[in-house]
């Protein structure tokens, strides 16, 4: 599923109703939902940020910050899982 895209020189995100909206309207709750979806499934994807492709300066800043962090999540999915289970890692290993 495409969560962020660059279309017609605009940065957009998929809202909770399945429509694409400008990233200027992105709230913290939208962001949390997107972060969770990227962590949950590799198929949940997004357009990578490319400098100069978004004309609106505010959209450009938002898209750049969000997309770069989403790349980190995809790359470090196992590390995030390990951090989450760190406190009781022995118990998780035993009772998984």
């Amino acid at each position, binding site marked *: 599923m495409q969560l962020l895209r660059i279309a017609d020189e605009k940065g957009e995100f998929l809202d909770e109703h399945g429509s694409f909206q400008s990233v*200027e309207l*992105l709230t913290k709750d939208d962001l949390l939902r997107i*972060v969770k979806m990227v962590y949950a499934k590799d198929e949940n994807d997004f357009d990578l940020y490319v400098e100069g492709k978004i004309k609106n*300066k505010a959209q450009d800043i938002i898209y750049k910050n969000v997309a770069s*962090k989403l790349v980190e*999540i995809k790359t470090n999915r196992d590390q995030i899982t390990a951090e989450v289970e760190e406190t009781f890692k022995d118990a998780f290993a035993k*009772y998984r």
Partner: protein
Amino acid sequence: MKKIDLHIHTVKTDSDADFIFSLDTLGEYIKQRKLDCVAITNHNTFVESNFKEISDKYGASATILPGIEVDLEGGHILVISSIDFLPDFIKKCQLVNLKWNASKTPLTFSEFCLIFDDLNRYLFIPHYKKDKALREELIKLFGKHIFSGEVTNLKQFEVCKKNPSMLVPVVFSDCRISADLTKNLPISQTYIDADIITSIAQIKLCLGDKSKVFLDPSKAPGSFGVLEDGTTASTGLTVIMGERSSGKTYTLNQIKSNFPNMKIKYIKQFELIELGTEEENKEKFKKLLSGIQALESEEYLDKFKSTINSIVDINVDTNEKDLEKYLGSVRKVAFETEKIDVFSKTKLYNEVDLVLEMHNDLDKLITSLQDIISPSKYTSIIEKYLPKEQLDNLLKELLEQFRLISLENKMKTITNEIILSTRTDLQFKSSAPMIERIDIKKLIIESQSITWFSKIANSICQEKRIRDDDLYGFKIVTSTKKFANADDVKGVLHISASLKDAFKLYEEPYAYLCALKEKISPDMLYKCFVKVEYIVKNQYGFDVSGGERAEFNLVRLLNDAYTCDMVLIDEPESSFDNLFLASKIKNLIKDLAEKMPVIVSTHNNTIGASFFPNRVLYTRRFIAPGKSPDFQIYSGGFLDTVLKDNKGNELENYSVYMNSLEGGENQYDERKGKIYAAVKNSR
């Protein structure tokens, strides 16, 4: 009967104080103490060359066993191997050493079992009634492989022997073999009822049977060697008698130095006597009481101290400024609408952080449940009511709940990071005001903490009696008192800084605390709110006199001695009258002697006879022709007819009592038959 010491250090490790191993001293130790078997047990290490050097030199004189002292889950355990398995044992010790050097943390039980996989091969002796004791539940986990434990207190040796549920006790020197040791070779060893020792199998047989371990080669119950010549004392009460300059103090000093690893309370002769003027003595007593008072104060204010620590770093000024800045920025955003631009119009521009969910209670619940599930001596009882399968399922479900909350918090943390970096970049481009980010939750918690602190401080500052104690006739009142002025506070803190301005706020705890923070270090703050008074009165409720001060000192020292392994008292009659000794000290000493060896030197008949000691030693000075003075020691039971020295020479016990305690039989007869009878009949 064989004499063994299976706890000897010959290599300095990071768990030891500095010492340099002396091979000669070890030889001297084996020879002088007539040891039949020793084990080399260094901390978490086994050095093959060191062991070989010792075996080559002394293997013919005594059985030398390879061993190691392992740090195991906070306790210590000796692992001793048969010489037959030496190559394999060396490999296992290397694994222990690798683990120790890598982490400097004790092995876990499972790590220990992985290394020493065949537990049947070794002799295991944990620290039992001793510092760094292995936990009871851990001993249970070893099952049949642990049957014997090391103790320090010789009374505990007897207690363990009598109590069927306790391990077979052993006493070892736990000494570092250095050249210095030659002056005071240890005398803490155990005798085992074996004919020969060629392997650990024979030792195992003896250490598995309480009737085969002894502190004394004569097998006498309740006695142990205290002097190099083999003289024994009771694990209960022993009295040393003898004329002046006959070596009583010398003997006590020897006994003290023979047990360097024991916690010994030694009350020396005249120690408690007041030698100064009345004023000086009163001042000295006052100092003593203020020391006790300081300890009482620490105990009483312990929780208050943590309360202060939890709020001392709160900065109310900063919090107020943050709140003001936040409200100001909200106002600014509302009023400066003309500055709104493409950047500030975005939703993330003024977005606040997502709040994380606390889960400390869930963490505690999971930890407790893990404790319940993990194997212990109570497992069978637990499983009777809570089947293991259900406990496992509960743990699984709680872990899943933990994982969900923890994951949600992680996702929120990542989201907050994106919000922060985006806001920062947008703000950099925009001229519109932005709402300040503050941690409102933190501000509320800190504000509540200050309110609670004020309530607790007001309650602490009330004047009240904490405790009324009766210590063998002395009345002790511990109470709290409000400080009267700034100098009163300074008296408790022993500081020179002026607290006058701060003290003006004494009735407003938080303001007072803030003012004090400017003047004194944070670790002293808790002492500034109330003082703890410790007052000692005699049995009639009056201030104590000079004699009573000394009596109180003795009572207090003896009362504190309950945590020791042995008590030595040198001629208490030098400082006290017979009535006090008979009425108060007798019971205290008898009670102490129920728990540890107590050795009292005396030539006083109240102590020597009326205390009914378990054993008596009689010291006598003699000068052989052409030689310097030497001391002879005779010993025996309290009601024995004769006392004997280590060469078998005998003395009539009755004469000893008469001469030591009564000034000779004639004097005794005269006092009893003539003087006391005459006084009695003259009524």
